[in-house]
């Protein structure tokens, strides 16, 4: 030990980035509670998330060449110690999560004031930070069990955040309760899978797991582990038949929470799914391929249509957006199931694009709810005209949700269709386009309500406050920007997809 110590080179700030990414928000949460001042809660949370965003950007730039950064927590080398491992795939998701977190907070400032009783504000921001930490942690870590820990951190705080909507509608409570039961079962399935992996290999480090599974080949234990992990994580992803927690949770949560969850929670879960499917297990395993073909493809197709139809008929705009999220998750899973580099990059890029798009839409709805009191279509009549800037942002992001060219949504769908063609899956490509038509319908209904109906004469609606408008417009502009400048999103998604498909880099450093 002492001999090792003499070689120790003092670590610099840059070396710590992978862990700082998670630690800064983790630190912010107890500080908010400890200080306990309402006026300081928001600035601390915002500073932490902004710092996390900067860090994630630096990390993303560092790994864009296809390499990875490994960080040993506690100085214990993996596979024994916990490793944080950043490569292009998770750097991209980290940037999305921290970026959305940073944008949501200014928005939350106004929306939380309006929707949540004052005495809960401090705890709300602490919870928000914990959720943020959990999501970042489960993406950043390279240790399978650590994923579970962070998953639970984010989930538990999410349940609390969702339940905060109870002020507005008591159904938030049952939504949170359902989510809790489902989430816990999903997470428990996940650790059962990990237990099996541990039994079969004796390690929990993802890279080491990949090495050992590759060396020893598979057996029933590993296959069962795969099933448990996919289904457990699939629940968090809201794969079609496991999605029932999502609509209620998104609908009844406070606006800021809906925005944040819609843009990040399922996305982080999809990343974990990707990581396990491609880095830990080898996609060339027959059982994995079969699971993809038999489980993922039919259910994602089902999601694309059934959920879209439900979205078409919804009377509540938040619920409609929630169902549209389920449909969009179908696209992402399809991209995974295609098992080629283009499909994977489609998934990754759609993950980012859809996150940005959905966040902007939920923000718009939240801003309108300030005046309308509910998100039912009838109560939003003509608000697009009364709140022109909010309405315009919603139009921009709505177009992106449809996938109109010149918006971010188009890029991901285009790449996805390309991937389908690469495999020769015509029917799937056609299905993607058809379900886009459904998106046209439900997004159109939103536009119609916002612009083509007469506003309620008694409505006191006026333009949303600046703190809401700016985040909304940042995201709406991002929707357009990513539709033209695909270097950042698609470029990094391609690097990430290549990295994932190449399998794990193993323990090599």
């Amino acid at each position, binding site marked *: 030990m002492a001999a090792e110590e003499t070689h120790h080179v003092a670590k610099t700030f840059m070396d710590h980035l992978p862990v700082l990414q998670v630690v800064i928000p983790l630190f912010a949460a107890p500080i908010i509670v400890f200080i306990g001042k309402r006026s300081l809660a928001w600035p601390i949370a915002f500073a932490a998330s902004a710092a996390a965003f900067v860090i994630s950007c630096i990390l993303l730039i560092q790994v864009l060449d296809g390499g990875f950064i490994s960080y040993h927590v506690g100085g214990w080398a993996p596979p024994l110690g916990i490793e944080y491992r950043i490569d292009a795939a998770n750097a991209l998701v980290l940037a999305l999560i921290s970026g959305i977190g940073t944008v949501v907070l200014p928005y939350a400032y106004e929306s939380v004031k309006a929707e949540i009783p004052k005495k809960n504000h401090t705890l709300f921001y602490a919870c928000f930070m914990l959720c943020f930490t959990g999501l970042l942690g489960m993406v950043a870590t390279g240790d399978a069990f650590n994923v579970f820990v962070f998953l639970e951190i984010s989930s538990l705080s999410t349940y609390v955040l969702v339940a905060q909507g109870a002020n507005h509608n008591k159904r938030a409570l049952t939504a949170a309760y359902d989510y809790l039961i489902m989430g816990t079962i999903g997470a428990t399935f996940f*650790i059962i899978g990990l237990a099996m992996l541990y039994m079969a290999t004796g390690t929990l480090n993802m890279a080491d797991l990949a090495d050992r599974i590759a060396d020893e080949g598979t057996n029933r234990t590993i296959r069962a582990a795969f099933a448990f992990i996919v289904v457990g994580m699939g629940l968090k992803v809201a794969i079609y038949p496991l999605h029932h927690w999502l609509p209620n949770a998104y609908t009844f949560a406070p606006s800021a929470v809906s925005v944040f969850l819609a843009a990040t929670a399922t996305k982080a879960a999809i990343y974990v799914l990707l990581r396990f499917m491609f880095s830990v297990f080898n996609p060339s395993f027959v059982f994995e391929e079969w699971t993809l073909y038999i489980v993922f493809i039919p259910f994602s197709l089902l999601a694309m249509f059934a959920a879209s139809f439900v979205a078409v008929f919804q009377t509540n705009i938040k619920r409609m957006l929630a169902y549209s999220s389920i449909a969009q998750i179908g696209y992402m899973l399809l991209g995974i199931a295609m098992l080629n580099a283009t499909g994977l990059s489609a998934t990754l890029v759609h993950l980012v694009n859809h996150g940005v798009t959905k966040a902007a839409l939920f923000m718009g709805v939240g801003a309108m709810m300030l005046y309308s009191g509910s998100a039912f279509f009838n109560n939003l009549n003509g608000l697009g005209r009364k709140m022109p800037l909010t309405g315009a942002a919603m139009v921009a992001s709505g177009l992106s949700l449809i996938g109109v060219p010149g918006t971010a949504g188009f890029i991901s769908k285009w790449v996805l269709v390309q991937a389908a063609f690469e495999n020769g899956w015509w029917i799937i490509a056609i299905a993607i386009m058809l379900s886009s038509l459904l998106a046209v319908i439900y997004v159109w*209904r939103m536009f119609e309500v916002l612009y083509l109906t007469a506003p309620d004469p008694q409505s006191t609606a006026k333009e949303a406050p600046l703190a809401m408008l700016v985040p909304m417009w940042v995201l709406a502009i991002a929707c357009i920007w990513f539709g033209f400048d695909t270097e950042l999103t698609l470029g990094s998604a391609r690097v990430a997809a290549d990295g994932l498909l190449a399998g794990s880099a193993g323990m090599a450093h």
Partner: protein
Amino acid sequence: MEQLIDWAFIVGHVNYWLFIVLMMTGLYVVVARGNLVKKIVGLNIFQVSVFMLYISIGKITGGTAPIFPVDLTGHIEPDPSIVYSNPLPHVLILTAIVVGIATTSLGLALIVRIREAYDTIEEEDILKIEREMTAEDNKEYGAAMGGRA
């Protein structure tokens, strides 16, 4: 001659059988019971089954608690003759237990709030109330959409 039932296999894997029984019990309770508290209890049983699984896979026959004997000066003297259980699953499951406690208490807290809001903790009643709320919303707000549909 091959035995019809491999008793050695069944008895040798008793911890797994128990795990499966517990897990299924837990899941069954979550699925079948309408009382929200009972659901949480079922969830607890379900989680506990996983704790058992982890702990049992860390167990090594004849193994003892993985703590090195220490003399009074604090000096560690490893004794190769002592077999230790694998501590890692135990450590892991400690975390999972904490998560379980958090989940349970959060779940119960939600139930308290649900009880206050709905005046019942029977799922059937709650669903009925919620269906009525949806139907009411739909009656109030659905007309425009239904008309267009």
